[in-house]
């Protein structure tokens, strides 16, 4: 009881007794989470404004006679004629490690019922992206744990890699797998006590999704023990468009804190198509001129200013990084849509997921021809680079030959060999959801494929054999994998150990 009294006394003592000066206006129209306000002559662009009943808004449209504000809360009590006040502050969200393991809304308020967030730090939601001087080229890998991705479209820390595909092709699964893999690597690294180990913290921005989907994602992360390294920013489909518009920027501010404090972070925007739709809705209500597909003219800038904030900083700027995995949903596999082409041109590559491959049971359904990473092998460890160098070419050749071979009954030996190898690689890349594979095991499996260990196994048994090999390498055949993990290289001695381990495994595999 006395502590409450002390707290009240302390707050009263600290309370400012100075006169306050505010700039006010009145609501003239109110619709769909957007208010037109008359007055507010001194309001700043993107300034937080205060409506009655503790509802906050952001001044987005500064016009000659009025100010267009998006509202961030329950607007049911507001009415025409209500007074609106400026706050003199730009919209900020809490940042820091206190947010890890928490689920927050678009303005950083906890929505997981785990109490308040113990963080004194806050970052403005809208910030200028790092310039040229503090940046460094991407050269450190960010392992997704997905063989098809890590081998053919490697992602580096600080890269922006788009995940694109139709609905239900496994886009979110790739992102969640990556987050789970980071948590696994973080735990392994922390356990090893390596002082140079750099954990990757993750932020997952759920945009315009069903609450049940968000709950399923949280459950998957909790079950895999990944939640302690993750912050979830949720702006579900039922949320107002203003929150859906803000959520990616809020998540980005949270990620920037890690980057600017010399740490590594990964942010997933799931998905930016819905973000563009929310922004279109706001813009139309604000009566901004509309362009192609009724999107406003600055829809490119909407995403470019967000994704440019992901970067790899140099040593002088703290050596931190923020990797972005934006997700875009295409319609009928059309990558030439307005928003997909915008985001493709902004990012450093894309992982394209094909519906046909998905329906054939090839999961993850990564399209070899359309997927690319502009960072390339610079974001792979040396050992992996050695074994995965040719795989993308082999697979691309296989897809092309497979299409032609349908018309040809008598194939030459070389074509048959290529088709055979390709079919085995396709089977090798098949991987279940939420089951990332460590990079050293991936290297060993790929090495086995390159050195013909799978050639005598029937194609339909390849997936089973790869699973069996993965298990063997995690238990009995650990040694060569540990060497790869520690050195990052594939020395001749390691290759010999790997050969004998794979021979041992093959004897046991039936």
């Amino acid at each position: 009881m006395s502590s409450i009294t002390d707290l009240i006394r302390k707050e009263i003592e600290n309370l400012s007794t100075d006169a306050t000066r505010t700039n006010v206006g009145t609501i003239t129209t109110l619709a769909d989470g957007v208010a037109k306000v008359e007055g507010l002559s001194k309001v700043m662009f993107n300034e937080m404004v205060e409506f009655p009943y503790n509802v906050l808004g952001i001044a987005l449209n500064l016009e000659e006679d009025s100010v267009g504000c998006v509202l961030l809360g329950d607007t049911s009590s507001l009415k025409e004629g209500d007074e609106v006040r400026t706050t003199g502050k730009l919209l900020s969200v809490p940042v820091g490690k206190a947010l890890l393991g928490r689920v927050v809304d678009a303005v950083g308020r906890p929505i997981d019922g785990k109490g308040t967030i113990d963080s004194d730090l806050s970052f403005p939601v809208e910030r200028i992206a790092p310039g040229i001087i503090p940046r460094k080229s991407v050269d450190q890998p960010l392992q997704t744990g997905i063989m098809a991705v890590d081998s053919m479209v490697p992602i580096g820390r600080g890269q922006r890699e788009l995940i694109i595909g139709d609905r239900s092709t496994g886009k979110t699964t790739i992102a969640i797998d990556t987050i789970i893999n980071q948590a696994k690597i973080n735990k392994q690294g922390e356990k090893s006590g390596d002082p140079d180990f750099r954990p990757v913290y993750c932020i997952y921005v759920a945009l315009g999704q069903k609450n049940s989907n968000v709950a399923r994602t949280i459950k998957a992360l909790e079950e895999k023990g990944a939640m302690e390294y993750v912050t979830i920013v949720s702006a579900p489909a039922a949320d107002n468009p203003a929150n859906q518009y803000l959520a990616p920027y809020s998540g980005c501010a949270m990620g920037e804190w890690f980057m600017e404090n010399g740490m590594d972070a990964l942010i997933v925007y799931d998905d930016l198509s819905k973000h563009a739709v929310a922004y279109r809705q706001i813009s139309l209500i604000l009566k901004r001129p509309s362009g192609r597909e009724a999107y406003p003219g600055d829809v490119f800038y909407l995403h470019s200013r967000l994704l440019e904030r992901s970067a790899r900083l140099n040593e002088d700027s703290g050596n931190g990084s923020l990797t972005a995995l934006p997700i875009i949903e295409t319609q009928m596999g059309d990558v030439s849509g307005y928003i997909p082409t915008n985001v493709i041109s902004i990012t450093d590559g894309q992982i394209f997921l094909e519906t046909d491959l998905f329906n054939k049971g090839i999961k993850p359904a990564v399209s070899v021809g359309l997927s690319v990473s502009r960072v390339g092998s610079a974001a792979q460890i040396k050992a992996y680079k050695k074994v995965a160098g040719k795989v993308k070419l082999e697979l691309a050749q296989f897809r092309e030959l497979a299409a032609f071979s349908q018309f040809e009954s008598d194939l030459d030996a070389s074509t048959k060999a290529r088709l055979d190898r390709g079919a085995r690689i396709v089977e090798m890349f098949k991987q279940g959801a939420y089951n990332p594979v460590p990079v050293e095991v991936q290297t060993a499996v790929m090495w086995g494929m390159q050195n013909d260990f799978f050639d005598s196994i029937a194609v339909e048994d390849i997936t089973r054999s790869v699973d069996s090999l993965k298990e063997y390498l995690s238990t009995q055949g650990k040694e060569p994998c540990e060497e790869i993990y520690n050195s990052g290289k594939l020395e001749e001695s390691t290759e010999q150990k790997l050969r004998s381990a794979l021979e041992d495994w093959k004897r046991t595999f039936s």
Partner: protein
Amino acid sequence: MSSTIKQRRLAKSLLQLSLSDDGRIERDSVKEILESLLVSRPSGLVTVLRLFLHQIRRHEYTYHARVEYGGKEGEKLSEKILEKLNQNSSKALDLTVIDNPKLIAGCKIRLGDDVYENSISDRLNKLQKTFF
């Protein structure tokens, strides 16, 4: 009733014509403008008149300060407040003083879109925000 950009611009220019050299609304000028409008009858006259009235009211707020006070000493402060406001303004200001018991003590001045407040009710509101 919605208005067009042209109507809003016309209302604004009519306001400029209604101002005297010291930036205050001149009744005679307004009367003349209204008479000429009734003769020329531009399209959307009713809307233009409504917008013109709105502009006049808003402009009046820029030199008409409204002082609300709470407590016994409030009324005595009005002259001092007017003097201070006039020092900081390029226009000669008017003052309306209103007793507002909701403020408990202190005063609240509104001039144009700016509100200056130092009252007990404002401090209590601030205190409430620190707790919730």
